[in-house]
Every structure is written in structure tokens, then in C-alpha cells.
């Protein structure tokens, strides 16, 4: 295979001090999010200050959270500006509010695909997208056992 025809790679996350615990948990198929050491509330992604209590020394620690949540919106990608996803077209990205805290949001791929019926308020669970060259990436699947809050 020549370089010209080699498939483009999906972007591999580069962990840094603010994120290494997130990706380390993902490697074990666990969702862990940043929790403020001052007010105890979660934020994603962690910022310089805690957006809730505005502490400039939030001492974030990544703690495991329940990956269940509610679909607040979605889009079906029929083209991708990232060449590494060209073979995945079409795919669905969902904007999910996690149960663990009001307005705690995560954007991820919906593994059920573009043909799955989807409505606002649908219930999802966190799953993990395996990757060849990086940690698994948090994604979502429709929760067949749950009633949506329609």
C-alpha cells in the first residue's frame, strides 16, 4: 500500500495532565469525569477554574460515573471534515446529558447507527469504541430497557 492510498487515521487523543485519568479509565472501559475538590460537582472537560464554584484551585480528580443519560440532540454526518472517518459515513453523533448531574454533557458517537429511530429524550448508556491505535473512545448506545422521557 502506498502512502497515497493508506487509509487516514482517526485522531488519536493525546493525554495531558488534565486528561490522562480520563483516558486511562477509558482504556478500562470506564467513564471517569473531573470532580471539583472544593464543591464536589462534575465538569467536562475540566477548565482552569471550576465553572460551578469558580475555585481557581479546583483540585479536579477523575471519578467513575454512571454512563447513563438522555439524548438532547444529534446529527447524522454524511460527510466528514476528518479524513479518518471517511469509511464510517454516515454516522450519528449525540449530545447527551448524563444522569449524574444536571446539564453535564458529553458528545459521542451513537453506535446504533443512522437507521436507529431517535427522538429527543431517548435514553442511552455509555459504551466504548475500540480503536487500533489509541485508547477506546467513549460512545453511546440506545438503552433498550429504558423508557425515554418523551
Amino acid at each position: 500500500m502506498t502512502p497515497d492510498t493508506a487509509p487516514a487515521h482517526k485522531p488519536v487523543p493525546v493525554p495531558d495532565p488534565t486528561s490522562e485519568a480520563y483516558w486511562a479509565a477509558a482504556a478500562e472501559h470506564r467513564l471517569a469525569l473531573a470532580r471539583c475538590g472544593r464543591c464536589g460537582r462534575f465538569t467536562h472537560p475540566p477548565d482552569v477554574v471550576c465553572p460551578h464554584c469558580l475555585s481557581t484551585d479546583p483540585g479536579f480528580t477523575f471519578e467513575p460515573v454512571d454512563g447513563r443519560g438522555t439524548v438532547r440532540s444529534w446529527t447524522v454526518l454524511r460527510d466528514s471534515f476528518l479524513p479518518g472517518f471517511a469509511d464510517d459515513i454516515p454516522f450519528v453523533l449525540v449530545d447527551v446529558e448524563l444522569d449524574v448531574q444536571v446539564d453535564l454533557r458529553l458528545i459521542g458517537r451513537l453506535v446504533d447507527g443512522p437507521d436507529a429511530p431517535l427522538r429527543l429524550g431517548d435514553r442511552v448508556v455509555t459504551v466504548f469504541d475500540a480503536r487500533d491505535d489509541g485508547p477506546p473512545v467513549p460512545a453511546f448506545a440506545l438503552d433498550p430497557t429504558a423508557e425515554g422521557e418523551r
Partner: protein
Amino acid sequence: MSDRFAARSQVAIVGYAHSPVRRHHDVPLGALALDTALAAIADAGLTKDDIDGFTTGSLLPTSGGHASVDGVSVVTANWLAEHLGLNPRFCAGFQGFGQIPGSVTMAVNALATGAADYVVLHRALHNPPRGRYHANPMTHAAGPRQWVAPQGYFGPLSMIALPYNEYLQRFGASRDAMAAVLVEARANGARIPWSYWYEKPITTQEYLDARVIAEPIGVLDCDIPVDGVAAFVLTRSDRARDLPHQPVYVAGYAMGSPKRTRLPTHWPLDDIMEAGFEIRRRLEDATGLTPDVVDVPQLYDGFSPFVYFWLESLGLCPVGEAHRFVQEGIDAAAGGLPILSGGGALGNGRMHGVPQMLECYLQLSQRAGDRQLTSATVGLACHSSPHFGGAVMYTAEPL
């Protein structure tokens, strides 16, 4: 009332110029900006030595891995002043999104305080010469991108698709309704000689047949990237009355900001709308004017859903109704509310908030030619998303 904006009606637009809008100009952006600024100064009845203030917002384009070069891919206020051979008293750039209302705030404040007497406000937009505007051959995602790019969430189309779909689902709207916005923007852009879309209107069917990229966003829901420059001249109202054209007065301005810290590309619908409601309150506090007196409301449309968001958050139609309102009420030529009479970004090309500001100026100064509206007394020019942009109100007579 004492708590109105202290500089209300103290500053006016007195002239303008606009370059042709093209996919790619064969002259450097800086040269186009210089020629356009000089044309605007002449239009205002001034010479360049009268100008002692410059402002712009030069942010974007920064996508696609193109390095930003002043005078080539961006044109800052300082670059423009220096290359006009001037050493102005006031020269400053607006740093954020909402570059046009942001620059207007700086020009108005500088003029009202006497920091400058004649300000050139310009905007230079560049379309990178090679590759797709937003395409990115990223193999690793560091920094903020690590939270979304590994999922395939990247770029402004996905960013706007999420709140747009949230809108459609929440209010039971169809994406087909947006055809009315595109038909109106392009019908008006088709009448503007400098527009990229001059003499190129589209039909509802052409909109419906266009390629969908990030559902519900299709290719025609996005303004087309272009090279183009616009420039305005502003001065204090007492000086404006001596100049050749009818002045258009700045009544007030309001900027928005997100209430919550999120990823820069994560725009839930409620974040956008809350900021829009706040802008409406701030505009009314500053000017004393309510939405019902605005007869030239120019809504930002760089992505078509912004038209719905601005219509509703500014109170020009009820929340949840914009998708119905645009079916009946926005045909400027038929006496509808002229929200896109200047063509907007969808009808001119990616000139950011320039078409909105310019249409307010042209209509309120009675310079809109065959597009002149019967009633043009109060203008409202929006730019960007409400939660990163802002709006300026203009009047034909001082308040």
C-alpha cells in the same frame, strides 16, 4: 432616561465601500483592503489624512492548518493604518467573534470619548487558496480537540447541526422550511452587484436537492467562503451633518456571551437562546427601542439556523414559530419583514456581519437604490451566534 447608553445617537456612519466578493481575488487581501478603505473615505467626502482611528475584528479564518499572515490572510487595523501611511491616534482590534458589532462598539466608544474623530472600520475576509476551508488531516487530537475529535465531532457544521436539530425536534419543524430563508437571501443577493451570488437566485427545489452534510445542515445552509473587503467610515454626529451623505446614527449595541463554560464547539440551543434574550434586553435598555419599531432587521445567517435563533430571541416572532414565520413573512419585495433584504451572508458570501451592517446603512441613508424599502427608520444588524456575537441598532434620525 438617565440609564440609556450615554453615546446614544452621538456617532454615525457616513460612508462605505465594498469590494467585489469572489472565491479568490487575484490581488493580495491587503491591497484589496487598502483600495476599499480609500474608496470608503472618498465616499464619506473625506481624505485619508482626516482619518485618525482604525478598528476591525480580524479573527477567522484560522481553520484548516493555514497560518495567518497579516496583509495576506487577515488584515488588522494596525496593518491597514500603517500601509495607508498613517499614524492614527486610535487603532485597535476586537478580539472575539461578532467581529462587526464588536468593531462598532470600539469605533463608537473611541469617537464618543474623543479618542478619534474619524474612524475607518473594515472587515477583510479571506478564503484559503488550497484545500477545503475546514478540512483537517488531523492524526492526533491534543488540547480541547481531544474531547471531541476522536469521536468524529469536528468543525462548525457539526457544531451548528446539534442546536439546529434540537430546534427542529423541539418544535416539530421540518428542515424543508429553511428553503424560504435561502430563496429570500439569494433573491436579494442576486440584486447586489458586488455579491458573489449576483444574478444567481435559487429555487426552493434547488435548496431541497442540495447535498446534506451534517443533518440537518446541508451545503446551502452555509455561506460560501470568499475573499472580500468592506469598509465604513464613522464619525461624531455633529461632524457627520457636514458630510455628503445622510448620516445613520448608532442608537446602541449589545454583545452576548455564553452563560456556561463548555467546549468551544458545543452549542446547546438553550445557551444560544438565553444569550439572544439577554441581547434583546440590553438593546432595549441602551436605546429605549423595542423590536416592534425595527423596520430594517438584518439577521445574521452565516449558518441558516441563526435566522431562526435571532428572529425568536429578539422577539420578532414567538419562540418556536420562526420556521412558520419565514414561510409567509420575510419576502422584502412583497412587503414582508425584510430580515434578509441585504442578502445576508447566504446571499453575498462569507462576509460575516458586513451585509447586515451595510444594509442598515444603505436603507437608513436612503442609498439602497432599487432595493430601497418604503419604511427605513430603525435598523438592527446582528452578527454571529447570539452567545458569541451581538447586535447594533441604527436610526435614520438621532434619538
